[in-house]
Structure formats: C-alpha cells, structure tokens
C-alpha cells in the first residue's frame, strides 16, 4: 500500500534491490540457456513472468531476497548430490539426513514444533530472545519446506521422466505448501507490525498441520511420489493450487490472530500480547489478502473446470464449499467496510471462518464425494 509522501519506486530502489534483480535475471537466463530449446512458447512466457514476479516479490519484501535464493541454493545442492540417481537418497549422507525432500520435510516438521515451543516460552516469559529464536526457526523451517518442494520436484523426474511433476498435486504436498505459505505470510506481518507474540498462536495451526503430515507419512505412506492421473495433467493446477493455499493460509492466520484478540479482550495474556487494535488490523489485512487470492484461485479453478469437466461451474461439492467460504469472507469484509464493525464480533467470525475453510479444504475430501477428490484419507 502506497503512502502519500513516498518517492516513486525507481528512486526508492537501492543497490541491494538491483543486485537481487540481477541474480534472478541471471538465474533465469542461465536456465533458459540450458533448457530454452525444450520450452514451448507458453513455457518461455512463464519463465519470464515468474522471473518478474520473483523480482517484484523481492522488492516488495526484503526478506524474500535472501530467503528465496537460499532455498534455491539448498535444493540445487541436493540436486548436485543426487547426481541423476535416485538411489543416492539412501547412500549420500547429506541427502539421507538433510536434503532429500523427505528429510527436508522432516526437518521442517521438527523446526516448526520447536519454533512453536519457543514462541510460547518467549511470550509467557516476556523473553524477546526466545521469540527471536522462534522467528529464526520458523524461517529455517520455511527454507526446508521450499527447498524440499523443489527437490521433490526434481526427484519425481528421477523416478521416471513421465512421472515428473510439480509437487502440489495431492493432500500430502499441499499440506506442506500450506505450512510454508502460512509461515511466510506470518513472518511478513510479524516484521511489518512488530507482533512477534502472535507467533505463538499462528504456529499452533501450523503445528496442527505438521502433526497431520507426520501421521499421513508414517501411517499412510502418503509421501510416496505418484504420477499424475490424466485429470490433473493441466497447467491450471500449477497456479490454481498455490493461489488457493495463499487464501487458506491467510484465513488460518487471521483466525489465530482472532483467537489472540479474543483472549486479550478478556484480559487473558493481555499484558504479554500486542494491543487488540493492532491485531484487529493485521486480521483485516490477512483476510483481505486471503480473499483476493481465494477469489483468483476460485476463478482459475473455474477456468480449469471448463477445460477438464465440461463446465466452469458444476456445483461439485468442492466448488460449492469454495463458494460458501467466499461468501463468508465477502460478508466479513462487508461488515467491516460498510457497517464499520470492529473487534470482537469480527474476531469470532474469523475463528468460525477457519472452521468453514477447514471443511472446504479437508472435510469435503473426507465426507463428501465429488470430482475434486485429490486426496482421500
């Protein structure tokens, strides 16, 4: 959001911004020189578009400038260690205990749990250092998550060239995506609004997702890479799914901030948490971001459905629940912007919103039947 007294963008950019942009452009150029001949017209456009998006994201959010290259470097190291041979996952020490996608995810899980503990310890004992360590571990977990996803992408091609695919196509992978996106969004707001104590709450929902990932891995072996069935072989998936999870992550975060806000308004932990007004604003911002991305994701989903199922809207249970989620948050925003609601009712509503969203996300897959069953439990 632009401030009134602000220099235009080109004047605000410093050497660091340009250096980062150069790094992305060089990386994209190098990729193009390696694989350009294998890319069709659309893929070239997508390469260019994603480079621009990455530069923009780095300029908008300074932390991204080290986060993304670091995650990229970690997965490049993993790829180096693999050396075109999947069997190395069990042989190479670095892969087996650190960098293979599964090891990365296990580290991610561990670090998220630790971060949750540290955030709580820091909040309860008012120890800024513990909370800073919590932030640090959350960042580290996010690096492992993103690097692990990249590595998993590569591993899928090692299984067989026709198995290769982006890792956002089943419940296991999207749960990791959910953890990653929720953590990153939280870290952004944490820095922007100096609300580190809220980490204790937001990390709880991430820890719940992590618990699910562990159960899903150990009990159901859901982590195995399966090839894409024909219904999922579509470009739309690559943008529809991440967009949706920005929405889900933002809604989950706003609900946890809502919980914190409700506690403060009841005098619980009030002295240890930021003011309710600040949290109210962060909650609103999170829902506004989530709503935008959820809208885009639903539209992309409709366009995909028009290619795959013979209609942009079929009242499939998933579609219908997406509509209900959308209406829910549209009403929330209406109440805040038009009726001027603030505080407690909206906080409660955000918490209830998470229940509705969770049902749309997981409940539909578990309890209802439809075309959209990408992951059964």
């Amino acid at each position, binding site marked *: 959001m632009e401030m009134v007294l602000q220099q235009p963008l080109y004047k605000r950019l410093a050497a660091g911004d340009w250096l980062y942009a150069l790094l992305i452009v060089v990386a994209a150029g190098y990729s193009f020189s390696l694989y350009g001949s294998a890319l069709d017209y659309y893929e070239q456009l997508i390469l260019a578009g994603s480079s621009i998006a990455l530069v923009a994201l780095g300029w908008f959010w300074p932390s991204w400038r080290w986060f993304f290259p670091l995650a990229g470097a970690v997965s490049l190291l993993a790829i180096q260690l693999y050396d075109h041979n999947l069997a190395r996952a069990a042989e190479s020490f670095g892969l087996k205990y650190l960098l*293979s996608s599964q090891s990365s995810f296990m580290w991610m899980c561990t670090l998220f749990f630790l971060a949750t503990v540290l955030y709580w310890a820091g909040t309860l004992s008012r120890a800024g250092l513990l909370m800073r360590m919590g932030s640090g571990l959350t960042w580290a977990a996010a690096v492992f998550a993103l690097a692990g996803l990249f590595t998993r992408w590569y591993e899928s091609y090692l299984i067989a060239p026709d198995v290769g695919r982006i890792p956002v196509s089943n419940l296991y992978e999207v749960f990791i995506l959910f953890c990653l996106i929720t953590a990153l969004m939280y870290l952004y707001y944490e820095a922007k609004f100096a609300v580190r104590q809220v980490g204790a709450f937001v990390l709880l929902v991430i820890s719940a997702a992590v618990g699910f990932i562990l159960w899903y891995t150990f009990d159901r072996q859901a982590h195995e890479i399966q090839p894409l069935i024909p219904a999922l072989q579509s470009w739309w998936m690559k943008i529809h799914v991440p967009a949706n999870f920005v929405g889900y992550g933002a809604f989950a975060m706003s609900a946890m901030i809502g919980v914190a806000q409700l506690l403060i308004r009841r005098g619980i932990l009030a002295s240890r948490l930021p003011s309710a007004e600040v949290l109210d604003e962060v909650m609103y911002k999170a829902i506004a971001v989530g709503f935008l991305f959820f809208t885009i994701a639903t539209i992309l989903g409709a366009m995909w459905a028009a290619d795959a199922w*013979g209609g942009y809207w079929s009242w499939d249970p998933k579609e219908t629940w997406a509509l209900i989620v959308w*209406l829910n948050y549209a009403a929330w925003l209406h109440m805040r912007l038009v009726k001027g609601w603030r505080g407690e009712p909206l906080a409660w509503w955000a918490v209830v919103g998470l229940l509705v969203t969770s049902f749309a996300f997981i409940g539909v897959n578990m309890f209802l039947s439809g075309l959209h069953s990408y992951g059964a439990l």
Partner: protein
Amino acid sequence: MRFAIGLLTILAIASIIGTVLKQNEPYPNYAFEFGQFWFVAFEKLGLYDVYHSSWFLLILAFLVLSTTLCIIRNGPTFLREMKSFRERATDNSLRAMRHSQQLDLTLDEARAMRLLQGHGLRVKRVPRDDGSVLLAAKKGSVNKLGYFFAHIAMVVICIGGLMDGNLPLKLGELTGSIKPETRELPQAQIPEQSRLGAGNLSFRGSVTVPEGKSADVIFMNSGNGYLVQELPFIVTLKKFHVDYYSNGMPKLFASDLIITDKGSGKTSEHTIKVNHPLVVDGVAIYQASFGDGGSPLQLKAWNLQAPQAAPTDIKGNSLGAQPLKVNGRDYQLEFGELRVFNVENTDAPGSDDKSLEQRLNDARSVRQDTKALKNIGPSISFKLRDQHGQAREYQHYMAPMQQDGEWYQVAGVRSDVAQPFQYLRIPLDKDMSIASFMRLYAALKNPALYDEIRERTTAKAMQGQAISPAMQQQFSDSVRWVLSRFAQGGFGALEQFLDDKVPADKRQAIAQTYIKILQGAVVDVMDVAQAKAGLAPWPQDAKHYRFLLDSLVSVSALQDYAAPVYLEMSGFEQVQSSGLQMTRSPGKNVVYLGSLLLVIGIILMFYVREVRVWLLLQRDGTRLAMTSNRHNRDLDQDFERMVDYLNKQAGEA
C-alpha cells in the same frame, strides 16, 4: 440489505444441502434411501437437483435484481463522491477532522500546489472570501470504482450463469412442451417432446460411443428421466486410447474422433483427451469416461453336470445378452463389462506391521517399491439368469494367476451386488488347462466309479498297514460314504453331518479322519479318472499332490458357484467405448468477464487507498487536514510525515 443477506444465507444453506445429498442420482435410489414419505417431500422441494430448482433460481434472480438496484441507487452518489474534491469544506469541518492541525507556517500558493502535485495528488484551488486559499487534493479515487466493479461483476457472473442455466428447459417443462423421457428406448423411437433441436443455445449432456460407431445426439438428465439433444454434427469414435504408468496408474485417456458436419458433410479428424477438449460449432467435446464398447468374446462352456464332456464353444458380445440352453434348461446369459486391464495390489497382508525404524526409513524414500501392484489381466463379468428370473453374478479372469508357485484360473461369484465376490481357484495342469481338474471333478461326481476307487484306496491303506484287516470293510464303506457325501456337498456337507450326528467332543477327531480319507482317496480318484480317459497315471509327487488338494477345495467351492455351466474365457477382441461430454455454454465468456471485473474490483477496493488532503493557506498560518477511506495506522503515519514535510519545506523557503 438485511433481506438480501437473509436470502444469501438461504442460498448458502441450500448449497450445503446440495453437497451433502448426492445430486441427480436415479430417483429409485432416493426412494430407497429416504422411504416413500420423505422421498416425495424432498422431491417436491427439488432437493435432488437443488441448484436448478425453481426456488433456488428465483432467489438467485432476485439477488441479481437487488444488486442491480443497489448499484443504480448508490451509483450516482458514489460517482459524485469520486469526482468531488470536497472543496466546500468549511473551517469548522476541517477542524473537526481526526487528522487536522493548525501549523505555524505560511506557504506560498504556487509552491504548495507543486508540493502536493509532486506527490501524485490531484489538486483543486478554491479562493475564499476571507482571502485565504483552500487547496483540496486527493489521491486514489479509483478505490471507489472498486465497489462498482465488484458489484457489477456479481451481476455479470450471475447473468452468465443464468444464460448457461436450464431456465428455458424449466419453462418448457412447466408449459408441457418438453417432457423428459423415462423409458429405456432406442434413440430413434424417442418422441419429439423429449428432443431438443440443434439450435438450442445452451446444453450439457453426454453420450457413449463404441469404437467404430457414431452419435449425433447427446443425452441430458432431467428430473426423473432424460432428454435428447440433437447435435449439429455427427461424431464417430475411431479409436480410444488408454495408457498406463509403470505402476499401473492411468496416464492418458484419449479418443480419436471424426467429426462430420451435418450441413456440409465435411469431415475432420481430431484427438481429444482429458483436460484438452475440442470445440466444434461452439460445442465443446470432452473426454469424460471410457469403458467396454461391446467386445466379441469366445468362451468354452464346461457342463458342470457332465464335466467329463468336452467343452462347447460359445460366442458372445460383452454388454450383450443371449439365451443359453444347458441340460435342457433355458437360461439367459447376460454379459457385463470386459475389462482388459485389472490392476490389483497383490501385496501380502500383514506387511504393514513395521517397526518405527522401518517406518522412518520408508518415510525417507519417496519411492515405494514394496507395493506389488500388478496387472492380473482381462476379466469378463456376466450374469446367468434362470427361468424364474433368479441370477448370480460371475467374474472370470482369463489369464492364469500364480499363487505360492502354482497356477490357477480364478472365477468370482456373488448372489447379490452388494456383496463382495467369492473366489474359486481352479488349479491348472501342466498344459495350463482346467481339463485335468474337470476330469477329476467328473470322476468324483460319478458314483459308478466309487467301487473301483474305494478298492484302490483300501488296498493302499492295507499295504501301508494303516488299517487292520478287520477294519477293511468298514474302511472301504467309509471311503465310499465320504466320497459321495463330499461330491454332493463339499466340505460343508461333511461338516453338516458332523454337526447333526456326532457328539461335540468327538467331532474334531472324526473330522480329521474324514479329511485323511478324502486326501488319500483323491489320489485314486485321479488315477481312475486318468485310466477312464485312457491317459497315463500321474506321478506321485508333491506337486501333483498339491494339485489334488487344491482341487478338493475347488470342488467344494463349486457348490457355492451354483451354475450349471462353467464359462472359461478363451479369447476376445477388444472394442472400447468412449464417454463424451458435450456442452454449449454461451455464458462462459460473460462469466469470465465478470470474474475479471471482480478481481479488478477487489484489488481497487483493498489495495488502492483513497487519501484526501486539505491545505488551507491563511495569511498567518496553514491548516492541514487529511482523511482516508480507512482510519488505520497508515494515515497516522502519513499525517505525521506530512506535518514534518511541510515544516521542513516552509523552513527552507
């Protein structure tokens, strides 16, 4: 507004019902699930197709209307607001603003104007009667446009949706000019009132086309029946393709189609696959499903009442029905689907019990090789219906299956579709044929051979000194009795006898004896069977003995198989069919336009901030006032900065 929210809530609840209650199922399913009373009640409410029920569409239409009215009513005010600089703000109203301050500085008018404009603000200059000048400035007015875009988007999306909805059909059904067909009729005989012309603007239906066949209509579900939609072209399925990954998961479903235009007779060839539809004359053709298209089959029928006879050859077509006469009785043979590819998880049960360490190791690997997914080859399902209309369902696998090192032919049977199949495993001989088993079965079923068998068995028992000479006759009688009882009713018959006639404490021991007798006698049954057929006796080794024991299990299982004939699939020519979904949706682009407006609207609403600045330039000071469409921390910051900035600028001047 309140009313609109009430209606929205009703829509949301109705939508939830629609996700919980499976939509558009055949009506008998609902009647079975809810009972007659609720079935009728729900039908009246239109709950079986909530999203197309008249009340749902009515509420939707009303919401569109009320949103439109809302836009029309509030639009002009909004536009005026957007254009206005609020230059008529009085001293009092400026003072009353939350962000307002009297600054002890004077600014030259042209300079102040430049300062504001330099930061992207649009400024309007208003000279006042008292000699002061008000500079009313603003930024981000397009924020207001966001409301327009978002609300107009709602209307546009709903209009697009209604264009693709089945409103005309509903009206046609209400007036009686369209009537869904509820009978199963050949396509050509479906009456005119259930047919829709090719000119129909919007439709969505499907049709199944076997390879080499054509279709020029599609079928649409409508309430309790269906409607026929004529197409402007003829679609012919040349070939259907399905590819699999190495682990057996499907990789590709594709149909090679020939499209023939009905008007011009021009043809063109296309391939469609999932996610890649073809658009012809505004009709999009989708790969929706696939299946068996009626494949010619060759079968060998073994008469189970006379298993010694050579099997007779039968020809048939999957998905077809034909009469079958067995032992003078008439049956109807109804073939189901031919499935060429059956992927099963043949993992041994119990392999899931792993230690934590193993689980950790498994969790590290993204590839699991232990899963034994295997294609077990073609299968045919069929029903055999007797004269009373009673039928059992069978599923026969064509390829031999290996279990524990030996080969079997597998056939499933069930008397009720709700039950799982019970499988019969017939052991195969060294020629991979069931002929040896049938020979054994025939001998077992033939009481005339029992004397010869019991003599051999008894002689062997005497020779091995398993029985004393005194027991010879009794043993021989037992062999005969056990054989005949087993041949009539399998293990179940022996068990029945034990339960009925033998005291509980002795059953175990006697059952053991029966089993031993049976296991001994079966060798002689086979020898006799071989001799009768003029074949050499079997060598006595473990492999052949296992065959005989497996055969006993199969003979017993044939009791439950309960068919007069065993149909062994010996060959087929696969003819597949492809399920094509076709839609014409003129509203699609309208909906997309609405979606675009919606996204633009949301971005303008949430990410463009409207800020207004007033500078009242007086002779002895300056009043600064600022507002924003949202009172948030950003405005506090902006205001502070603006005060600092002006102070600095005034100092420099």
